[in-house]
Every structure is written in C-alpha cells, then in structure tokens.
C-alpha cells in the first residue's frame, strides 16, 4: 500500500497498481488537463498540459521537499510518499501558457468544427486559458485532406499530441500515420499511396482531443450537443465491445467505444463502428402481417398476442428458433412461453454467422469471426431449459423426418441468413411465424410476418465469447409499426405492464444455473459468468 499526497489529500494506492500523477489526482477529484497522454498509449509527455508540481514526503519526519521545476503528471509515477500539487500558481500559469501556445496557430473555427462541444482545447481554454489573445497573428484557415476512407485531417486544428500516430503504431499496428516536417511546421500525414486503412481506423477520431481528425461518416451530420449518449453493447461480433450509441430524436448518428478493461479497453473496430446503418435502412420491415387467401394482410399489434397465443395453443408440436441476436431475456421469454404450450417444444439455436477468421491486433484487440453478439447467452438458455443444444443445421436435418405444427423463427441478422431451400423445408409448416428485420425467402413463406428490433432498440443482456455478460437498455425507439421482441413476448407471457428486462433477468438468474453469478449484480464492465462455471465443476 502506497500513500500519495495530492493537493493535501491522501490517496491510497494498492500494491501492484501503477498510477501516474494524472490518475492519482483523479482519485481525489482533481482534474489534471492533458492532451497527449492516454491510458491506452505510450507516454510521450510532449503536450505539457499536465504539468504539476511534485515532491516527496519523508516517511519518518513528514517533511515535504518539492522539486523546483514543474513536471508532467503523465510521466511522474505515484509512489509511496510522492506529493502532487495540481492547483498552485505555477501550475495555473503553465496551463495558461500551453493553452495560449496551442491557440496561436489554431484556426478557432469552432462554429464549423465537428469537435466543438466535446473538444479538449475548447474545454481547457475556458477553464485554464487566458481571456485575451496576445498573439497578434492571423490564424490559418484549416486545410483539410483525406487520410483514408474513414478519416479526414483538418491540418491546422492539430495540436500535435501524436495520439493518432501512436495508436496506429501500438494498437492497430499498421503504422500508417506519421509526423512530417519539423517544429511549428509539423503535420500529421500518411505516405503517398499508403492511406490510413485498417479495421480500427475510426478510433483515431475518438482519440483526437481536438477537431483535427474528422470521421467522414459522421462529419457535419450532427452537432454533438444535440445528441444523447446511451451505453450499449456492440452486436457486430462475439467480442461484444462496450459502446455508446449516440442519437438524436431516435436517429443514430454514431457509435463510440466505451472503456471496458475486460473486453475492448478503449477501442472498437470499424466494422462495429459503422455497422449500425441497417437500423435506419429503408428496406426494414415494419408491419406485422398475416398470410390470407389473397396475400398478406396487416394485423394490429393490439390484437396480435391473443391471436398468436390462440393459434399456438392449438398446435401440438412446436419448435422455436432462437437467433443469437436475441438478448438473453428475449430468448428466455420466448423459450419459456413455447415450453408452456408444448413441454417438449424444440428449442433451436439460430444460424451462427461466421465470416473468415478471428483477426487480432498487436494490442490484443480481436475482431471475432462469429458475427453475432449472444451465441453463448442463447445457447445457455436453450441448454438450461431443454438440456440439449439443437443447432440450425440439426434442425434442418430433423425437418426431413419430423413435422411440426408450429415453428417460430427469429432473425435480426444484418446479412442474408436463409435461402430458398430453408424456405422450402419450412413452407409446409401449418403455422410459421417469422420475426425478422428484413425480408428473406423464409419471410416470404411465413404465416405470420413479425417485424423485429435491432440492437439499438433492444433491452437486455448479451454474453460474449468469453462468457462475459453485459446488460444495456434501448437507445432509440424502433420505427413506427415495430414492437420489440421483448415487449411482444412479455405480453404473450401475460406479464403486467411494460416489458422489464431486469425483472426477466432476475428470473433467469434464479432459473438457470449458468446465470446465477449475475444475480443482483450490476457492473458497468459486465459480469464474468465463468466464475460460476468454475464453482459448478
């Protein structure tokens, strides 16, 4: 145990924890401004914004000896007896100096800059900068150039923190970015014909503390202060990165990674980052329909649960295909509901999309080949209730010699996931309910076509490849005409009021042993369910 003194307050640091001045100060709520330092990157100590005073307290006498000069907080380790002063006159003056320096050649084009509102330069200037501009030099207009397909560089807004350069060297590993020229003429650039082109490129925009790096997908789409941010979990692959969905009036504008030391650290891949476009795809199906004698006719949502319930209760042999895109709560509710009708109802794990191979980066960050968020969760719901796992392929095989009175298929995939042969196999089922976001061959032969929700509209929990369960709430409402799976199943189960994923999850933790580790626990980084498995073995 080490004791560090920050602005007169003692901070206890447990053994094995390595903190720098910025992190130690944060423990007592002292915000040390910084640009170049980032917990996920190497330390360069070059922006000098985090300058603090430091010294050492003698363990025996308690006397404090201060260093005469300022030191960067990012580079100064907090060890037993270290003293940090973050609010002295010298520190305040140094911050004002760095802010003034950074603004000398900054274009100050905040009104047309995407970063305005979440810009460190802006925020720090209000807090630490001078009121008047003493540099009587006209700033440049901001030249811009594309660094690659995803990122645009606004050259003169850059404060040369080099976070992006270090990211491309240390995290994504392709080292496309570099610093060219020297001194005040420095710029970030790429080599000719070697653009910023890697599957993690979007992270440099999040890392940029100013508006120098713009996300070409997000550029000029929305002012950041209009958006609301919702914690969510990426549904792109089985890594399940912690993310934030940022939306305004039920329209998603961007996804950003959310720090999670157990899953994605600070990063997310471009596939996930830009993989939300299907949420607002015009081709999304939005009306529930019933097959009639002259084609399909619309059904009212209010009448639908009772109608489906009546039809299903009349069926003897029922199968339900649970998509790995469903949340644990949704899968559990639907499985529980059909098992209530047919005790032997077949629970099938929907197709698990796999593309290529897992792709790892130098930092350890991995994009999984399994392109769905919740295979593990749905599997465990099925195993927990039915004691055996039936895969989509098993199910297709069994359709050759078994017949079902009713089959409920859930989808929610971004890409084509069934074909004519699946449709042929299932078209003879008397009651085929297909719940999906997009039309497909299977959709076209369904008795009931039910529109489904996307990840940003769901409530519930996913379990990633490593058995980490993360819960989240909806970020946007589904398009008009769509009721989320959770809500529909809630009503089929005749539960009271609106769908409450937490209540369902509590039941899951009581009923299914795999999930018990998560009983009554809430953690922003998710819960490791393997703990429970170890106990069981």
């Amino acid at each position, binding site marked *: 145990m080490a004791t560090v003194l920050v602005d007169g307050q003692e901070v206890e640091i447990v053994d094995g924890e390595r903190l720098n001045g910025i992190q130690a100060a944060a423990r007592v709520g002292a915000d040390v401004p910084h640009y170049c330092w980032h917990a996920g990157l190497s330390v360069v100590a070059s922006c*000098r914004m985090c300058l603090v005073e430091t010294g050492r307290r003698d363990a025996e006498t308690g006397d404090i000896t201060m260093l005469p000069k*300022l030191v960067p907080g990012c580079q100064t380790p907090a060890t037993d007896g270290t003293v940090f002063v973050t609010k002295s006159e010298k520190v305040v003056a140094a911050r004002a100096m760095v802010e003034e320096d950074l603004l*000398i050649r900054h274009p100050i084009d905040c009104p047309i800059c995407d970063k305005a509102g979440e810009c460190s330069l802006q925020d720090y200037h209000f807090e630490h900068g001078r009121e008047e501009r003493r*540099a009587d030099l006209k700033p440049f207009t901001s030249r811009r150039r594309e660094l690659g397909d995803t990122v645009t560089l606004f050259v003169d807004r850059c404060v*040369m923190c080099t976070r992006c350069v270090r990211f491309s060297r240390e995290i994504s590993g392709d080292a496309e970015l570099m*610093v060219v020229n020297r*001194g*005040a003429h420095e710029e970030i650039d790429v080599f000719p014909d070697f653009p910023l082109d890697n599957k993690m490129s979007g992270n440099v925009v999040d890392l940029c503390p100013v508006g120098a790096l713009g996300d070409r997908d997000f550029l000029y789409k929305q002012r950041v202060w209009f958006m609301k941010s919702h914690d969510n979990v990426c549904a792109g692959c089985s890594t399940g990165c912690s993310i934030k969905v940022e939306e305004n009036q039920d329209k998603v504008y961007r996804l950003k990674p959310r720090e999670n030391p157990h899953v994605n650290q600070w990063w997310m891949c471009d596939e996930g980052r830009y993989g939300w476009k299907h949420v607002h795809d015009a081709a999304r199906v939005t009306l529930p329909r019933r097959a009639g004698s002259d084609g399909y006719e619309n059904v009212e949502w209010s009448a639908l649960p009772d109608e489906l319930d009546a039809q299903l209760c009349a069926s003897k042999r029922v199968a339900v295909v649970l998509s790995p895109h469903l949340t644990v709560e949704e899968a559990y509710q639907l499985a529980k509901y059909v098992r209530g009708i047919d005790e032997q109802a077949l629970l099938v794990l929907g197709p698990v999309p796999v593309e290529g191979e897992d792709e790892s980066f130098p930092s350890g960050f991995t994009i999984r080949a399994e392109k769905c968020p919740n295979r593990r969760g749905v599997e465990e719901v099925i195993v927990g209730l039915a004691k055996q796992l039936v895969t989509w392929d098993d199910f297709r095989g069994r359709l050759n010699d078994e017949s079902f009175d009713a089959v409920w298929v859930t989808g929610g995939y971004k890409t084509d996931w069934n074909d004519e042969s699946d449709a042929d196999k299932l078209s003879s089922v008397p009651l085929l309910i297909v719940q999906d976001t997009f039309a497909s061959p299977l959709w076209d032969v369904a008795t009931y076509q039910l529109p489904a929700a996307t990840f940003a509209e769901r409530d519930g929990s996913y379990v990633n490849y490593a058995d980490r369960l993360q819960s989240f709430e909806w970020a946007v409402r589904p398009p008009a005409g769509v009721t989320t799976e959770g809500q529909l199943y809630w009503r089929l189960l005749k539960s009271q009021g609106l769908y409450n994923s937490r209540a369902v999850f509590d039941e899951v933790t009581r009923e299914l042993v795999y999930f018990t580790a998560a009983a009554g626990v809430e953690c922003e980084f998710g819960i490791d369910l393997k703990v429970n498995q170890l106990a069981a073995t």
Partner: protein
Amino acid sequence: MAEFQPVLLANIDKDDSHTLRAYESFGGYAGLKRVFGEMSANDVKELVKGSGLRGRGGAGFPTGLKWTFLPKDYQGPIYFCCNADESEPGTFNNRILMEEDPHQVIEGLIISCFATASTTAYFYMRYEYPLAWKRMQAAIDECYEAGYLGKDILGSGYSLDLYLHRGAAAYICGEETGLIESLEGKRAWPRIKPPFPAVEGAFRKPTVVNNVETAACVKQIVDRGSDWFRSIGVQPDPDNPRDPGSFGPKLYCLSGHVEKPGCYEAPLGLTVNELIENYGGGVWKGRKAKAAIPGGISMGVLTADEFDCPLDFAGPGKYGCLGLGTGAVVVVDETVPMVDFLHNSCQFFEHESCGQCTPCREGTSWALKMVNRIKAGKGRLKDLDLLLEIADNIGIIPGTTICGLADGAAWPMKNAIRKFRDEFEEYLKRTNPNGYMETDPVPILEIIGAH
C-alpha cells in the same frame, strides 16, 4: 598561461596529420597499447574520474561519473555513441579534430569504450562535414587494417566495432537522446528522462554518449595522467560544494568580428578578453565590441563590459548566461543592431525546434514572428515583455520541455533584451514612432475575419 602548449591541437598543422602513419609517428596509439597492457577497465574509469574531466559537448557533466551510471556487471551489449553532431552556432572544435587529427579521437574512443565495456560504438556525425566524414571513415578503415579496431584488438581479447553514422542535418540530433532516436532510424525527438541513456539508451540498451573533444581529452589523460590534467584550469569554488571545478585544456572557437577567427586551445578559465586579445588579434578593424556569446548561441549573450568573464564551466553562469556550452565565442561589434542578433537567434531556434513539446514548438515560432514584426517596424514595447515571458517559461529549467533546446532558445532572448533593453526600446521608438506604445490586445473580430 602564455606558455601553455597546445595538447589536443599539437599535431594539426603537421603534414598528413590525419593519417595513421603520421599519428603513430607522433606517438599515437602508444597510450592505447599501455592501457591494454597495464590497466583494467576500472583503472581507466578511475583515472578519468580522478582527472575531473567534464563533458565538452555543452552540459559539462563529469565524464567519469557518467560512465559509472552504467549498470554493474551488465550481461548484454552496452553501446557507446560519439556525439559529433556539432551544430551549435559558432562551434567547430570537433570539426578541427575530426579533419586534422581523427586518430586522436578514435584512440580516445577505443579507450573510453574499453573502460565502459562497450563493444559497439557509433560515431554520429552531422551531415554538413564532408571532409571530416571522409577523413574519419579513412581513419576507421586504417584502424581496422592495423588491428586497432575489430576483433581481439592488439591481442588484448577486447573487441570493438566502430560505425560512422552520418546525420541528416538537424540540430536536435546533438541532444543525446535525440541522437539515439535518430541512430535508431526514428524521428529525432528527444526522449523523456528517466530512464537516462546509461540505463536505457540506443536500442533499449545501456548507452554512453560522449563528445568528440571529450574522447580526445580521455586519450590525453591516459597519456599524461590525471595530475597533469588537474594542473590545468580552474579549481573548484570553495564556496560552492557542488562545483567540481573546470580542469584541462579546452578548444575555444573564436569567430565573428575578430581579426583572427579560429579554434584555439587554452586552459579552461581563460577570459573572453584574453581570448579576443591574445588569440584573436583584437576586434575586427579596430572597432569596439558590443557583445559576445560565451559558448555557442544557446548560452546567451555577454555585453562588452562583461568580457572579464572567465570561460570555465562556472564562469558564464555568474554573468547571467546559461553556462560554458561548447566554448564557442562569437564577437559582435558595435555596428550590429541587437535586434538583428536576436532575429538571427530566433530564426535558428524556430527552424531547429523538433516540435515535440508545445512550449518550445509554439514559443520559438511565436518569438520569431514577433521579432519579424519588430524588424518590420511594427514593434511595440509590450512585445519585449512578451518575448521575455516566453523566454522565462520555456525549457527544462522551468520544467516545461523535455530537452534543453528550449533553454538554449530562451537564453539569447532573455540576455539580449535584458542586457540591451535601452537599445531595443530606442529601436522600437525610432522604427514605429506612432505605434510603439500600443498595448491593446488584437481585436478578436479581425482574427475571425481572416477566414
């Protein structure tokens, strides 16, 4: 003092002094043979430590002490870098040594490497020295042929490879960690310290970085003993327990407005006046001197009244300068406006700032723009205070930068404006009679309108 006989420069005027044949005829490499025959690495280390030799590159850090910072009994390579990126304005002492007496440097280097147990040495030479480059490479080749470099040198069992590396003309590569980064093929951005190079330097291994003249001094100490070395120069200040003294001969570079510019060897502690009068033949054309820089431009400026300043490691500091630096004295006569002097200095540092740390990158560039403005006849009195504020706040001494380049940029600004304030004010009043009193900040609307 007058009878001091040059040691480091003893042979530079002799025929073919840069060749091995000539060097050996002056008794060269005898010291090296004696080291291998009679001394252990530790003996050499103690000898150099006892001599009180301080690094000749600018900072004046005791060389022997630097060597002892290497990890003890280190298993693995220790690298030795010879810093020949001599870019400090006014400085050319290393150049003379490399062009006229390269073997003296190499012998000192081999001894230094032996003392520090380095088996690989890099000789980092600035780009702009083509003749030195040619002669150094030729000398290294001769050494390999004669068995002074390579495997099992002179049957001693000690092996050393020396590689000549040519820089790409950047001042910052003279900073030891900038040099190491550049050597590794990276951008010469000085590293944050600690770790110091002695612990983690080139290729993440313990590394010693020594100056060319330092290496030559090591050779002379081995030849003549540490007592000889300590008999020359200035004893430690008894009132300052942290002053290790300034021993040995020093190569002073004298240039600017003097009759006989050149590189002169003299004991440390020579005054600026003595250097100008006894060696330089007085100020050019019999004019009056106005100022001089004591040891390369980054050390600051001395006024003509301060020419009694002794040029030892502690001397210039007592006259408001940063230190002795490289011992390069540039004399400025009375015809030179100090505004021009300052402009030249600011231009240099703006150009050479590596751009890593914000205060140096922006401070040097802002200062140059302000001095440009003053030179264009648009200067105001408040600009002087602003320049001083910048100068007082950049560098490793206030702690706002990683390396000392910013201190070097700051010192001429501080000294020139503080010591010649009247001249600057007179210049502003004369060139900007209507606007010199202006104190208002720049109207913000005009700036927005610039787009």
